């Protein structure tokens, strides 16, 4: 799917299916330096099982044009603009890492547009180390290496992909390397500066789900506890032996958690 939002062309993956206004929609929002492709296994499932699945490339990322947005609040506003443009009245928001914060903020600001909220690898604050910020600001390859090193659990650093023949950390590194200059730094600054998570969580009125990796070094699960506690109606799924790259490390466990959550409101067809 392609659309124009705020004057820039936007790409969104839909699992090779057209968006059907009669179906409920689940909107996937990727994290820093990533794009829609981190979601394709899960998104493809929902696209073929009763939902419109829409996995966006945020501005400046992947196949989308425009500049990277400077704050979580700006990304939340962009999500609202996007669903307006593509005529999605209401969507379940599923966000990963930076995308989880943007989904949270969007749901807090625009509750009428959000049916359910799933936060993968959230943290509040989502503090980013000075070393990583500095490297990203220089567009230094070290930034990609640091993120890759911190995003996978120790077991998966050595492989064992559920997708046959895929070298997970190499794949993650290549995706980060494709990020346009300045985009990764903008994303990390947005993570680092966002301070409204607990206040926004308290405003959420829709069902919420948090999926955390027990071995997450990038956004340690203990840093998500206050955010999760502030959500009025939240379930938590902790995936053992899993790091921050949840969808790549444990695609089936993530899918199963999302299925149980999303079908609890929108029945399977």
């Amino acid at each position, binding site marked *: 799917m392609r659309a124009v939002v705020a004057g820039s062309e936007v790409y969104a*993956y839909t699992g*090779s299916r057209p968006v059907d206004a009669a179906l409920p929609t689940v909107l996937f929002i990727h994290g820093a330096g990533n*794009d*829609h*492709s981190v979601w*394709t*296994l*899960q998104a*493809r*499932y929902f696209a*073929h*099982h009763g939902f419109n699945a829409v996995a966006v490339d945020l501005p400046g990322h*992947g*196949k989308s044009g425009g500049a990277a947005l400077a704050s979580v609040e700006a990304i939340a506003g962009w999500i609202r603009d996007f669903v307006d443009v593509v005529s999605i009245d209401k969507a379940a928001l599923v966000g990963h890492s930076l995308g989880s914060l943007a989904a949270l903020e969007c749901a807090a600001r625009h509750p009428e547009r959000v049916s359910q909220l799933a936060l993968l690898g959230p943290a509040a604050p989502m503090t980013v*180390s000075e*070393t*990583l910020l500095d490297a990203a600001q220089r567009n230094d390859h*070290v930034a990609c*290496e*640091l993120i*890759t*090193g911190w995003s996978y659990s120790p*077991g998966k*650093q*050595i*492989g*064992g*992909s*559920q*997708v*046959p*023949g*895929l*070298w997970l950390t*190499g*794949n993650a590194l*290549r*995706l980060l*390397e*494709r990020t346009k200059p300045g985009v990764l730094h903008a994303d990390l600054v947005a993570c680092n500066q966002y301070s409204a998570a607990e206040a926004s969580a308290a405003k959420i009125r829709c069902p919420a789900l948090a999926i955390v990796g027990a071995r997450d070094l990038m956004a340690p699960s203990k840093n998500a506890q206050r955010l999760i506690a502030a959500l009025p109606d939240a379930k938590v799924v902790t995936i053992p032996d899993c790091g921050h790259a949840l969808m790549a490390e444990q*695609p*089936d466990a993530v*899918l199963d958690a999302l299925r149980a959550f999303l079908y609890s409101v929108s029945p399977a067809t």
Partner: protein
Amino acid sequence: MTKPKTTHFDTLSLHAGAKPDPATGARATPIYQSASFVFPDSDHAAALFNMERAGHVYSRISNPTCAVLEERIAALEGGVGAIATASGQAALHLAIVSLLGAGNHIVASRALYGGSHNLLDYTLPRFGVATTFVDPRDIDAWRSAIRPETRLLFGETLGNPGLEVLDIPRVAELAHEHGLPLLVDATFTTPYLLQPFAHGADLVFHSATKFLSGHGVVIGGLLVDSGQFDWDGGKARGKFPTLTEPYAGFHDMVFAEESTTAGFLLRARREGVRDFGACMAPFTAFQILQGIETLPLRMARHVDNARRIVAFLAAHPMVDAVGYPELPGHPDHALAASLLPKGCGAVFSFNLKGTRAQGRKFVEALKLFSHLANVGDAKSLVIHPASTTHFRMSPADLANAGITEGMIRLSIGLENHDDLIEDLSRALHAAGKA
């Protein structure tokens, strides 16, 4: 300062892709000798078929033992993933048919393995894919051979049998200027000596029969994707519809959208291996894995032995033109020093002075060197290319490929170097008296 975590090559050679078997605790990678895999339920089965879940369905498409090998070679090459194939030839074929169709064109080095030359020069034209062969050292020849319908540039890291060193950075740059990927056959070097992706290559394949396995008991190939090529960007846009347009054979999947980095591998597995069927057997994958575990140790020994034998032959009165790029007189000496600082492998050729009869006598007099059509075995090997591996080529093509009637190709094994030199010395003496 915080530094990125790095797992070194030697460690990856032993561990990448593998973990103790969760069912039994077996430390070695099990041989999953099963054609198919049970579905937990109908929904799971449908999701596996439609690529909504990851996993194994049928061993022609993927197999757990083969998957460990695929991850391992991808890790060692610095790629995003790989596909294990029935042979190196199958890997080359898979790369080509995943990208090209009738009407498309390849520019290839003319210094290729004879089997690759056969596929490109004699077989693929029947399917509408033409190839122009160029001197791999002549960058202008590469450039001028590119046509609007060209879709692939292809060469070997070390040419066969003359050891022409492919200038990967320059050829890759040229390819990318035209929106084309560079495919490299890295069989002779293995990732221990050279990682083509780090120099700009986009796809790599191996005959895993050779140094990767090392034992010479299996036939297998590996096709590795760097994940670096943008199939839908810049001058590549519109050139690769197999990756960028909906594929009716898989629910209109657009592979380059399904995976930003590994769309090529998706197509190659979901169409290429599925339909052409040249998959690797799990027992073969297991044996190649055993070989790769010791790849760094073996390659260091191969190169050390090769250097000693090159020095011996270069000084022998019955030998001229030892073709090893580390020798100062080799045309690619400087390039080899840059791309191959750990060595130029263990396969090289030399010219024996004298008649064809003396050449035959030399080969027949060798005791440790086995006369056969293979390279990269743990045991030392010898062959006469003009009458065997390249026998289909015309005299003019042989000359273009740098092959002379007196050329002898050696593949240096892991034996004691003094024993190998003694064997060569005795055979040279016998040839001299013939």
